[in-house]
């Protein structure tokens, strides 16, 4: 094997890996952040998603190498009560936006494998209804952050 072969082989493997990621999703992510809570408490993760295609697509779940489990949830307030419910699929309209933000849709990240600290960058892979995935880097922010800038 000459000096060129190894990088080529690696590139080939990488390409195979990408092909296994499934269908392409035309979704871009912004304002991705995690509210870090002390100890092993679950954390809320937020992101704004934009669908650049002419077809609606649904966010169906997420996973992260930094957490044992990630779930898609919705907080709601009705009759003076706060409630949290599981969400199976969150639609992002064609050429539209969907925001996961405090007090509404959010990802619940549980069982951090290592302590996550404010300032850390955490990779979260978003899963979509068509089988596609989108890796997004989330910024860890302190517990008392109100949004991704304050």
């Amino acid at each position: 094997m000459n000096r060129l072969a190894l990088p080529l082989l690696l590139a080939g493997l990488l390409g195979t890996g990408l092909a296994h990621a499934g269908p392409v999703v035309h979704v871009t992510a912004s304002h991705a952040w995690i509210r870090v809570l002390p100890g092993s408490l679950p954390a809320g993760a937020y992101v704004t998603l934009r669908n650049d295609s002419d077809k609606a697509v649904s966010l169906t779940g997420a996973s992260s190498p930094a957490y044992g489990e990630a779930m898609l949830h919705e907080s709601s307030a009705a009759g003076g009560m706060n409630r949290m419910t599981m969400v199976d699929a969150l639609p992002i309209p064609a050429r539209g936006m969907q925001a996961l933000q405090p007090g509404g849709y959010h990802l619940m990240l549980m069982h951090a494998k290592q302590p996550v600290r404010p300032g850390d960058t955490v990779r979260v892979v978003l899963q979509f209804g068509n089988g596609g995935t989108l890796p997004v880097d989330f910024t860890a922010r302190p517990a008392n952050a109100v949004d991704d800038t304050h």
Partner: protein
Amino acid sequence: MKFPRPLRLALLLLSLTGALLLGGCQHDALPFRLTNISGHMPDLQFQLTNDNGRPVSAADYRGKVVLLYFGYTHCPDVCPLTLAHLHVVLQKLGKQADDVRILFVSVDPARDTPEVLHAYVNAFDKRAVGLTGSPGAIEALVKRYRASFTREPGSQGGNYEVSHSSAIYVFDRNGRARVLSTPGTPQDDLVHDLDLLLGAGASA
């Protein structure tokens, strides 16, 4: 009975002053922006354990303006959002906010030990206190303020979700219930009303 004229005047003035003072106590009509619950909710009263593991009662917070909120630490979205907002409100009040205490009462005492609560509340604000206790003591406090909470089975074995009242109950320095803040309330309205209550001082 006849008093000399100067004395009669003094007595009249004294009784007028007394009436004014009493009237002040009864009405105390501060121009609140939030829902006024003065006289409609009972005074602050509880026997719980604080986040340092010490038994505490409402009397320990006399002299402070108290924000009472029911929640639990395994609530990753709404409880932290509420506490983060309260932190911002206290920041806006400046130095006088040192006379405010946020009492975060756990409705999940099985998981929320004083240690867990201590780390949790201090991540939001130094003036926040975590309170836990026996399920009976917590239930009594929840009922006292007509709040409620339920436990629902979660997605996996042993895990459960808790739904809980979203309101924040505000008490004056004498432990009297004064206003109610809800999630839809503009932050500045809470700042405004806390400023009034802090300025009112503690009456004897």
